[in-house]
């Protein structure tokens, strides 16, 4: 029971924070709080979209957890998701998009090959952005906490610029890339929501990763190097390469998140698409205590909390996004190693 305490307290504090903000800012707090609890379940549109968001979070949080299990912190999730989403949108709308089809002729390039290329490119982009901090840590002991964050903070404005400048779709008012070709869109399973197969892929990958960590020799070395690096060094395990692998894998999962965000949810890369998803993923991973199976329910709950607060703020007309406050409070609580319920003996 004890291990559930911190996650429960974390979610409860998130709920309390949202309720307090609503009570102080909404014109009619009663209505806002009611819509907080009822609206997310009021239609398939909300349920589907919440689950879809949960799917993306499961992928990204699996990435964050893999970093934690390998003894590293990946704080560059934002840029890893954002940059790979842009790469996906570029690949799927360039030669494969409407303009390309007009030039090359319909079906000039096989759909599946392009789709696979985009997937590989997105995964590579995410992985590369995390590999750099990983290799810096293994090679010159440069803290990956700082380097992954700083690299991400530097990349985000560049992606912003690319979306608003060279890759902007000039035909629309939205600051976004051109939409991807229809053939590349994952078809919605729960209309009218965008819920799609990526939710199940995410769960499958999280379970697969959990099994690999638990049942294989490599997985064992990975977790031991992460939790007890000195012991692992003594045992002759390759701790340095585990550092690099855990960061790279973490980035790869964030890259996949960016890929599915485009192919399954938004179909184009708009500015600030990641919108805090990297931080949410870290919060989910910490709530789940980096247990890859626990990531699944934690992400679903977190996505519900996020959608519910969005709904409540929309209904209150305050047009405010509470995401970062909720993230802050949940991160704060889950970072606690224990709760001081009883005073520790001196």
């Amino acid at each position, binding site marked *: 029971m004890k291990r559930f305490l911190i996650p429960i307290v974390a979610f409860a504090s998130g709920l309390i924070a949202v309720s307090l903000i609503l009570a102080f800012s909404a014109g009619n707090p009663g209505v806002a709080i009611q819509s907080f609890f009822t609206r997310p379940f009021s239609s398939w549109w909300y349920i589907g979209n919440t689950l879809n968001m949960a799917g993306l979070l499961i992928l990204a949080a699996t990435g964050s957890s893999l970093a934690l299990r390998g003894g590293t912190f990946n704080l560059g999730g934002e840029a890893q998701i954002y940059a790979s989403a842009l790469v996906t949108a570029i690949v799927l709308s360039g030669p494969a998009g409407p303009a390309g089809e007009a030039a090359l002729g319909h079906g000039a390039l096989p759909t599946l090959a392009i789709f696979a290329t985009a997937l590989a490119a997105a995964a590579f982009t995410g992985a590369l952005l995390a590999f750099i901090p990983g290799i810096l840590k293994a090679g010159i002991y440069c803290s990956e906490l700082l380097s992954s964050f700083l690299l991400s903070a530097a990349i985000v404005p560049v992606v912003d610029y690319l979306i608003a400048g060279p890759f902007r779709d000039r035909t629309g008012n939205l600051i976004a890339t051109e939409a991807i070709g229809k053939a590349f869109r994952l078809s919605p399973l729960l209309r009218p929501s965008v819920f799609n197969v990526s939710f199940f892929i995410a769960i499958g990958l999280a379970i697969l990763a959990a099994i690999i960590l638990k049942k294989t020799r490599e997985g064992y070395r990975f977790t031991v190097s992460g939790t007890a690096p000195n012991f692992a060094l003594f045992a002759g395990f390759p701790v340095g390469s585990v550092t690099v692998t855990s960061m790279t894998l973490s980035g790869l999962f964030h890259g996949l998140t960016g890929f599915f965000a485009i192919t399954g949810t938004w179909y184009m890369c708009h500015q600030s698409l990641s919108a805090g998803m990297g931080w949410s993923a870290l919060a989910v991973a910490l709530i789940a205590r980096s247990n890859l199976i626990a990531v699944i329910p934690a992400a679903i709950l977190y996505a519900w909390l996020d959608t519910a607060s969005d709904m409540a703020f929309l209904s209150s007309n305050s047009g405010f996004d509470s995401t970062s*406050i909720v993230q802050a409070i949940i991160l704060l609580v889950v970072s606690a190693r224990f709760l001081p319920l009883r005073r520790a003996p001196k």
Partner: protein
Amino acid sequence: MNQLIPAILTMAAPLLFATLGALVSEYAGVLAVFMDGAITLAAFACIAVTAVTGSPLAGFFAAIGATVFLLYLIARFNEATGANPFITGLSVNLLANGLTSWLSSVLFGTRGVIALPSRVTLTAFPRGTAAIAAFAVTLVLAFVLKFTRFGLNLRITGTDPDVLASRGIPASRYRILSWCIAAFFAACAGTELALSLGAWVPNISAGRGWTALAAVYLGYKNPFLCMIAVFLFAAAEYSTNVIQGTGYLPATAVLGIPYILALLAFILIPVLKKRKI
């Protein structure tokens, strides 16, 4: 040239404050990752209170009060629960973004710029005060860290907390105190940024909190070397402003430059240190 050096010195002032705060926390072994968020919060508190009371001095004290109180609570939380100070520091950054956005919409009905009314003249802080104050404080801090018992204890907190404990001094007290001092300096930086602009804008710190952390490492944790590092960063900031003005570089992409500079500092320092050995 006559304008260049005063311009760089003025730009250096908030960064120098932030760097001193980060330095104190680094000595205590709990790097102030929250610096960027704390600057944003302080700037908001300063402008909000100045706008209401009409007194920049009241704004300054409000900024100090709000920032130090928040970081004191979080530092106490860290000690009480064994929380990772890096993660709680990051959560302050997220909180600062959300909280300022929410408060500005609730209190001022806007989520963008909050400008001070023109009747609020900024006579409380004449131009150049902040720069002079920052340099004076650097001298004082260097002295305190090097020659006082407090400074010695603070430095031991980061390297050998057990030694302190064996002498009956709880290291946690110094860790908490170091965050309060860092928050105080963040408030100085935030106030200077906000009052010199006469307004609060979202993301007012513009990565300065992170540059400050880099300056601490670039200055080998020595107050005077840190000051030189701050000048380097301020000169870099000045030149990026000039470059931005020419339009050769896209304005949005330039926002990433402080982070790249900080990252380069973090990468280069271990490499340079190895060479020295």
